[in-house]
């Protein structure tokens, strides 16, 4: 009984104790804020990293694409054991290239990644349509020129294309791979399977009076960011507007040979993942196939798995991707989940968070040492009282209990205050950031580094609980040593202490 009485009395009368409470409070608050912000960043980054990636991606290293027609590939996947989990398959072509356009008299050339996709299917597997900034025609985005683009389009632009088509690609030797499974492939150069695209003639009116072909350009690729010297604000200036025409050059499918064409920007693609936004140019799959002279071949299959497919935290659908991998020869194609693609980055986020937590928990460790120091002082100050209590029959355990309970109480108060403070700061972190910004002129959160306009936060109840439990444990543990010293005092020693 006296333990509680004295704890409460000491709590109310010792100003030193407030130092302990404040150090615990600051530790807990910092951990909660940092964890919430880190978790927010990490979630947002995971979303970004996921971006346009499908659940499972099958790709071939063959520059000319899969030897099989995409429909046959799809058929093969659907008939496999993993087939029941396959929801949608979107074939696509991905290839490196360059884009060239005029901006204020300058000739701008940039490296790009050129993606030929089926816009509707691509939206299903990777949310492609969700990232378009101009057209809100979900769920069926298209590469058709928007009215805006058509209005701005300069009809006098000469739309040129590489006129002479190279011969269609010959099949690779992958089908002879001993790992090869599945039915006998139907080769694309078999004229019965797929008719070759008509060979365009330089004099055909189709190319003399061509219809402009739309492309969708990554937002950062199309915009120049610069800092306004007067206001210090990052501003974006569009370098490419819808209706502007660009030259895109890439390589033909079957041989090292440049191909190019003139295309018209219809829309921007803004996934807020700078890697994508600054490199990607989307065009309609048949347009890219025609540009690269690759018939109906594709280089990638983007697979969306069904919702009932068992999911986990990381590397969610290895079984589906493993099953699909079995359908192809070892070197013919690679099947991997999106997490496989972004694995190192995802792991880096988690490692970063773990290390930060470890370092920040040292703040709580410092709070623990301040408790140790302050309790040693309190015990010294209270030596006479300890002697009195012992002469009145208080046991060693009882005296120890006073100080351990006292630390526990301080811990509880500190944790409660720290949790309140941490949650408060986390909830209002953007307002606080704005305030600090205004007062000091220092931008804490540089919006030009991240594409977030707000600091993302995510409060996890489990993290808050773990932080609190850890801080309490540290508080109680660090009181043990002084409490033990107090308990061991002999009453006569203590009473003589004046």
């Amino acid at each position, binding site marked *: *009984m006296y333990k*509680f009485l004295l704890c409460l009395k000491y709590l109310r009368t010792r100003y030193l104790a407030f130092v302990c409470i404040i150090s615990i409070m600051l530790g807990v608050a910092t951990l909660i804020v940092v964890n919430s912000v880190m978790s927010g960043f990490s979630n947002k980054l995971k979303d970004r990293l996921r971006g346009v990636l499908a659940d499972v991606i099958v790709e071939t290293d063959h520059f000319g694409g899969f030897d099989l027609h995409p429909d046959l590939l799809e058929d093969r996947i659907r008939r496999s054991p993993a087939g029941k989990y396959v929801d949608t398959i979107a074939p696509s072509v991905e290839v490196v290239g360059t884009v060239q356009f005029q901006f204020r008299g300058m000739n701008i050339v940039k490296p790009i990644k050129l993606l030929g996709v089926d816009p509707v299917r691509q939206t299903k597997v990777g949310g492609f349509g969700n990232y378009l900034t101009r057209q809100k025609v979900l769920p069926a985005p298209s590469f058709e020129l928007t009215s805006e683009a058509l209005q701005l389009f300069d009809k006098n632009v000469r739309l040129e294309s590489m006129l002479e088509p190279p011969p269609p690609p010959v099949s690779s030797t992958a089908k002879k791979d001993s790992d090869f499974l599945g039915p006998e492939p139907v080769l694309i150069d078999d004229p019965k399977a797929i008719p070759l695209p008509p060979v365009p003639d330089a004099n055909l009116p189709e190319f003399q009076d061509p219809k402009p072909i739309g492309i969708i350009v990554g937002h950062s690729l199309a915009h120049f960011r610069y800092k306004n010297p007067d206001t210090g604000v990052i501003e974006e200036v569009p370098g490419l507007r819808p209706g502007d025409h660009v030259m895109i050059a890439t390589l033909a499918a079957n041989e090292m040979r440049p191909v190019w064409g003139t295309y018209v920007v219809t829309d921007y693609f803004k996934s807020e993942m700078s890697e994508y936004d600054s490199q990607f140019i989307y065009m309609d799959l048949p347009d890219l196939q025609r540009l690269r002279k690759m018939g109906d071949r594709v280089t990638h299959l983007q697979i969306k798995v069904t919702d009932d497919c068992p999911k986990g935290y990381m590397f969610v659908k290895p079984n589906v991707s493993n099953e699909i991998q079995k359908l192809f020869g070892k070197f013919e194609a690679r099947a991997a989940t999106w997490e496989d693609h972004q694995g190192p980055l995802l792991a880096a986020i988690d490692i970063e968070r773990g290390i930060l937590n470890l370092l920040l928990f040292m703040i709580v460790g410092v709070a623990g040492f301040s408790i140790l120091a302050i309790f040693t002082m309190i015990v010294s100050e209270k030596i006479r009282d300890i*002697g*009195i209590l012992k*002469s009145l*029959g208080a046991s060693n355990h009882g005296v120890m209990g006073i100080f351990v309970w006292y630390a526990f109480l301080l811990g509880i108060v500190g944790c409660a205050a720290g949790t309140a403070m941490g949650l408060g700061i986390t909830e209002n972190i953007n307002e606080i950031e704005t305030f600090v910004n205004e007062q000091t002129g220092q931008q804490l959160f540089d919006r030009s580094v991240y594409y977030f306009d707000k600091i993302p936060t995510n409060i996890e109840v489990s993290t808050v609980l773990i932080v609190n439990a850890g801080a309490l444990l540290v508080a109680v543990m660090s009181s043990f040593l002084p409490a033990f010293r107090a308990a061991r005092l002999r009453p006569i020693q203590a009473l003589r202490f004046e």
Partner: protein
Amino acid sequence: MLKAEQLCKTYRRNADSVQVLNGISLTVRDGEFLSIVGASGSGKSTLLHVLGTLDSPDSGTISVDGKRIDNISNRERDRIRNATFGYVFQFYHLLPELSAYDNALMPAYISESFFGWMKNRKQWRKRVDELFERVGLSHRTTHKPRELSGGEMQRCAIARALLQRPRVVLADEPTGNLDTEKGNEIMSLLHDLNRHDGVTIVMVTHNLEMAATTHRTIRISSGRIAEEKGPTFRPRILSAVS
């Protein structure tokens, strides 16, 4: 009956050793008021502490009603400190954070668990009210020790010592820090408690006049009993009871 036999105690500091108690034997009868006098450093305070289990003897035995208390477990020793002995110190030794009331209740807070306290608190409060009445401190129960005078603090300490109805009250120079007038008031209170309530008191003092008013006086010198006066005490009431 508190009985000590052949108590020896040596304090060692590095190479020096001081024999503080050198074979003291002593019997305190129930209801007696015994005073111990002696020069500073003669070992009288140590004797009192050893008698009250606050310190342990190097050799010799102490017993209460024939039961030894010098070689018992910590748990039993804590019980004995709590209920068998009541201590009154020269410097009062009250806890500064607590009111006079809570200070006097401290032995009960210590002996009772949380639930025990909840159950018995009324009885305890009644007991403390009686004691405060008895020592003449009823008007200052809620004051903190620093707001009390020396005499009042000592009255509070006496109330605390009596709370558990101890067998023996051990008083270590209870008037040592008070002026003559207040000291005499405390002495008459102790006499009163001894005479009317049958409280057994062992008191260490420097004041020979005060010592002379007690039933029996022992003078300690170099850790031995040098002289014994009395006894003027006739345990007639208690012998009639027992």
